[in-house]
């Protein structure tokens, strides 16, 4: 069976902020409205809606997808919410892709929303119940601790210094200074600032971590025959991949994300990519923590194991480098409303590949980009490859 080609034809996003005054529904509506306006469509043109939002506990609503349905445009339409934890933001466009690629729908709205500030006093507490109720919860682990374990393992395995890892945070936050929707853009930040920030759970310091945020992002997907009618600049979804590893995360070697590698290989195979380092021109790896961007670049086969940091040292990863990494500013700079942050990366590729990224535009008319998210208990990788 010949597969239907699917294009991204529109995108919109709210500002990412620490405490939005809007309700979750209103955030979802704002992003959806902008995405529809960007391609001059209305809800009447949309045949189905896909929603991504991470745990219900942030919004504090059981069946949060049902609550968000009208804000996301799901009223009177086939509407479904998919869910792979932190990987959701890059999974929900995959969900939109299979809605269209299956032939069931021609035009689909994909929305990702997260409002973490509803969780009072801090969204960290929502993560206390993500652990196994028998073997782990009695130890009262929190999310920062397990990132600290993983970061330490990564640093120790490859002999990478905190100074070098801090470069990632610096570059992403500097990139975000040019993003109009960013929460933590900072053109002046230095490695020194990162190393002097408060220690949260060693080796993780405050500026190694992305902020808790509220926000929403939406994109519009269309089948080839519709996309060509609606825009001169469709951006095609060329490959998708996702993999979820075992729940027993403590049995994994945390130095290397095999699940990201498998997800990437699935997407490369679909896109016909044999040499990703040559054939991918922009990458938006998931960067909730600075070391995570490095970890994921290695899983994505865009760097040798333990060598990703060299891309930041030699300038390859810079906006004007050979393989710009997170030109948006990433989660570290733009902010991290979980599911919305992943879809923000896909929206960034859409704008970059169309040459519409304004001050953030990478030079050289990039042809192909990759967005990736990660989630759960060091467990899930989701990958989307887009090209023009």
């Amino acid at each position, binding site marked *: *069976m*010949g*597969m239907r080609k699917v294009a991204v034809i529109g995108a919109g996003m709210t500002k990412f902020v620490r405490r939005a005054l809007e*309700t979750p*529904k209103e955030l979802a509506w704002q992003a959806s409205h902008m995405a529809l306006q960007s391609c001059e469509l209305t809800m009447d043109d949309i045949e189905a809606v896909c929603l991504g939002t991470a*745990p*219900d*506990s942030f919004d*504090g*609503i*059981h*069946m*949060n*997808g*049902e*609550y*968000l*349905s*009208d804000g996301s445009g*799901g*009223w*009177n*339409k*086939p*509407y*479904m*919410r*998919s*869910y*792979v*934890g932190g990987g959701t933001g890059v*999974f929900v466009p995959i*969900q939109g892709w*299979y809605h269209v*690629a*299956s*032939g*069931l729908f021609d035009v689909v709205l994909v929305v990702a929303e997260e409002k973490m500030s509803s969780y009072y006093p801090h969204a960290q507490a929502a*993560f*206390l*119940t*993500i652990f*196994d*109720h028998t073997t782990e919860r009695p130890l009262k682990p929190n999310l920062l601790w397990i990132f600290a374990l993983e970061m330490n393992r990564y640093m120790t395995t490859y002999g990478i210094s905190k100074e070098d890892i801090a470069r990632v945070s610096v570059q992403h936050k500097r990139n975000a200074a040019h993003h109009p929707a960013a929460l933590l853009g900072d053109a002046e930040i230095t490695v020194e600032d990162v190393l002097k920030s408060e220690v949260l759970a060693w080796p993780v310091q405050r500026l190694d971590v992305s902020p808790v945020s509220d926000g929403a992002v939406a994109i519009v997907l269309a089948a080839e025959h519709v996309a060509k009618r609606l825009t001169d600049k469709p951006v095609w979804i060329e490959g998708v*991949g*996702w*993999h*979820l*590893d*075992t*729940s027993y995360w403590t049995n994994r070697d945390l130095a290397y994300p*095999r699940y990201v590698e*498998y*997800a990437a290989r*699935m997407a490369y195979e*679909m896109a016909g990519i044999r040499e990703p380092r040559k054939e991918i021109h922009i990458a938006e790896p998931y960067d909730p923590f600075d070391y995570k961007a490095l970890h994921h670049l290695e899983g994505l086969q865009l760097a040798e194991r333990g060598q990703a940091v060299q891309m930041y040292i030699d300038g390859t990863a810079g906006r004007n480098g050979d393989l710009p990494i997170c030109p948006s500013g990433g989660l570290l700079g733009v902010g991290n409303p979980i599911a919305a942050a992943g879809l923000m990366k896909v929206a960034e590729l859409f704008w970059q590949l169309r040459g519409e990224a304004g001050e953030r535009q990478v030079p050289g008319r990039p042809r192909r980009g990759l967005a990736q998210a990660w*989630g*759960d*208990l060091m*467990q899930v990788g989701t990958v989307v490859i887009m090209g023009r």
Partner: protein
Amino acid sequence: MDRVAIAGVGWAGYRPSTPEVSYKELTYQAAVKAYADAGIDPRRDVQSFVTVAEDFLEGTSIFDEYTPDQLGAALKPMQTIAGDGLHGLATACMLVNTGQYDMVVVEGHSKASNVLTLPEITAYAQDPVLNRPLRLNSDFIAGLEMNRYLFESGTTLEQCAQVVVKNRRNALDNPRAPYGADLTIDDVLNGLPRSWPLGEHEASRPADGAVVMVLCSENRLRSLACTPVWILGIGWSNGSASLESREWGELPYIQKAARMAYNQLGISSPRSVVDFAEIDDTYAYKELQTLEALGLCSPGEAGILTEEGYTAPDGELPVNLSGGSLGMGQLFDATGLARTLEAVLQLRGEAGKNQIPEVVIGLVQSWRGVPTTSGAVAILGN
């Protein structure tokens, strides 16, 4: 949409409580049966896995973390859909129809007996600003809807009670149904009111259980030695999320989901086509309201037809031969899969005492419960 085959089914339960097994063990039992039924190895043959689940019912935030191992899905493309089992099947159908994945597994489970505060959890699905301060219980909202439906359709309390009598009698013949009973209409009507006019016997009670299904493309099926049941059409839709701006007497989202499924089969009227139906009876009146929304009878007609035995096992259109949710228990998001399982067994001729002769087409429908307006419809054939 190209039709998709259900190549294997497995189940565990259903029972009011299952203290000796965890939800993972329950799901594993169902998965092993489904894989044996289809004659496949999940590690070798399955390209993608789908679970349907909601965090709060599982008591775990980011529940999708715990979905892969019991299915043999670790380090595989696995996703969770926060929807009913029929949404999961729809997802599998879409994945197969992309042409990229020729075999997909769908899983749903309920471990409701673990939930200590079920009414509080379901009430937590209400709008936190507009509705939650009113402290509305889910059954209370169902009572409001029932009252409106009775008013608009002219359906009587006795007709609703007849649904309970029929479904719980059907459950006596279903080995998977824990709530079988031989009741009379008076027994039902004399029960305590739950939220008037809704009586205590008219609300389904929770149960534990798991259902796993193996779906594949027509091509892939050729290399399997199993009897397929086909998903010929599948549709889903949402209505208004807010209590304040929805229809209360009718179910426009079920009408819409049904139309989507019927269109895939190219049928305009399901009445002449459908041989039996497994539809929502979370509350007894829902079965009647849903029959009308599905176009299986005219508005206001469902109660009368039920009284006349039209939906009885020996009637023209047997409805909920399995015993439905009133007889099998409320399995939450596993409900759509549990009903599909019953339809698969009917279409294979393996429904035991509940088997009806000469079945070709079955209809399955589900609703996600109060306060949602989320529903799905699937048409199956052998």
